[in-house]
């Protein structure tokens, strides 16, 4: 089987999310990549070095600069004439593009796969992870999004893919990029961080969230996350949200601070290796999944913990 993996990038470097997809694609067959961008030569070179990669198709055109799905999907769909499976990370970018590719190919997409069980058989979460479905595609071609935490990351070195320039239909002329507000941060990215410190509604307001969670995260070199309640209440921006409808994370250590543990939140972090919960309600559901729990008032416990580390 020949697979085509959509490389996620910012025209400068390959995003980590791509690496797990390469691993998933490798379980199906030959791994080819698609880099759609503008002035993205460094991305193509880095992509070709990913272990296990064959051909790297590079479409370098202003129309692909911001990854607009209207422009990228027809390009990917055209390349699928020579491939059997299209795979994208289950990130906002992958989720934006892949279903459009599927519709162009008249294929039913398999979303957020957790494992490859056979050439056309996969497991995927449904009902916010409350059930795991095993599904088999009957379509000739496959379109798949991959949950990053479910597969090992492919090594970023060791590959010797060949770079091949391709052209696509270009600008569909129906959409344009206006602006982006992407937070620049020295912190590790939430979905690839080894340690995450997350805060919930109990943090009261944006200032308290900042003054309580940030020092601990700084001390541990951790990424900062939040429950939906904390995001909805405006303590932190939307891209901090961990949960079924936010980001799915699986770090080595996950701190849940003042998070009660709603099912939606658990769905986004329960694959973490070690979960540490601090909550003053000893019956909070978070303690049912926590490896280490501390029933305490977070306003005193968290600073104390931060100082002692």
């Amino acid at each position, binding site marked *: 089987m020949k697979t085509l993996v959509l490389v996620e990038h910012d025209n400068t470097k390959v995003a980590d999310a791509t690496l797990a997809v390469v691993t998933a694609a490798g379980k199906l067959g030959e791994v080819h990549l698609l880099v759609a961008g503008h002035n993205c030569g460094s991305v193509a070179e880095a992509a070709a070095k990913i272990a296990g990669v064959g051909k790297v198709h590079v479409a370098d055109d202003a129309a692909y600069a911001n990854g607009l799905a209207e422009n990228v999907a027809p390009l990917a769909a055209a390349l699928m004439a020579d491939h059997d499976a299209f795979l994208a990370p289950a990130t906002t970018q992958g*989720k*934006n593009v892949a279903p459009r590719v599927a519709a162009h190919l008249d*294929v039913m997409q398999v979303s957020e796969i957790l494992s490859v069980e056979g050439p056309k058989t996969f497991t995927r979460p449904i009902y916010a992870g409350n*059930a795991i479905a095993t599904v088999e595609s009957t379509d000739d071609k496959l379109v798949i999004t991959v949950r990053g935490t479910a597969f090992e990351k492919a090594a970023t070195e060791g590959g010797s893919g060949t770079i091949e320039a391709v052209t696509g239909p270009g600008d569909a002329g*129906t959409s344009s990029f206006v602006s982006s507000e*992407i937070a620049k941060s020295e912190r590790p990215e939430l979905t690839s961080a080894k340690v995450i410190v997350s805060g919930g509604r109990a943090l009261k307001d944006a200032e308290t969230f900042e003054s309580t969670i940030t020092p601990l995260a700084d001390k541990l070199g951790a990424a900062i996350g939040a429950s939906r309640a904390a995001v909805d209440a405006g303590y932190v921006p939307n*891209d901090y949200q961990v949960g079924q409808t936010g980001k799915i994370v699986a770090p080595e250590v996950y701190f849940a601070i003042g998070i009660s543990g709603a099912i939606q939140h658990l769905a986004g972090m329960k694959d973490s290796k070690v979960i540490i919960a601090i909550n003053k309600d000893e019956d909070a559901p978070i303690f049912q999944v926590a490896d*280490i*729990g*501390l029933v305490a008032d977070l306003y005193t416990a968290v600073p104390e913990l931060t100082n002692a580390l």
Partner: protein
Amino acid sequence: MKILVPVKRVIDYNVKPRVKADGTGVDLANVKMSMNPFDEIAVEEAIRLKEKGAATEIVAVSIGPAKAQETLRTALAMGADRAILIETDEEVEPLAVAKILKAIADEEQPGLVILGKQSISDDSNQTGQMLAALMGRPQGTFANTVEVDGDSVTVKREVDGGLQTVKLATPAIVTTDLRLNEPRYASLPNIMKAKQKPLATKTAADYGVDLTPRLKTIKVAEPPVRQAGEKVADVAALVEKVKALGIA
């Protein structure tokens, strides 16, 4: 401008889904069903656009069993003007849903189609994007803010790194994210009035769409259960544990 709002009847947000003992799916018998929460946000957004004068008519559509009429009545009670039910007892996959919606859009010629970004049942997150591709129109997925300006719509999207703003030529497809708005509750008088609003019932065959599933469900199982660990007595004990993990 007309707005088309597809809505799905799903297991209520507050009900914990249970996997059937025979592993064929999730037990929906005698379980409270409601409108998919992301679709409520879509209905609300359509109503707000109409209140602002940017839209003239809101048509709600549902594809599902006869009982999905209740979901459509909810949309009508919130403020949609009329409804179309595509009645089927089959489970319809996003690709087939998108094909039916495309046929309805061809008939209705909406300027905007606003959908939930995903249903909380299947969690596929596909239908809006597929519809956009089938219609050959642009999409603003995971919308945080929607502004209509003449024959274009500007959508601020919730993306992994933060927010991205795109400008789309109408007709366009928008899918809703959580923070687009807070849906209203239907008032009792509006619930009564909704009973009089027009609701047409059709079938997928009326639109020539084949509902045969492309994905075969082999089994549905409970996820692996995570065991609770231990509770420590105080911060000092926690500090010891955290140090033992080798991260501090």
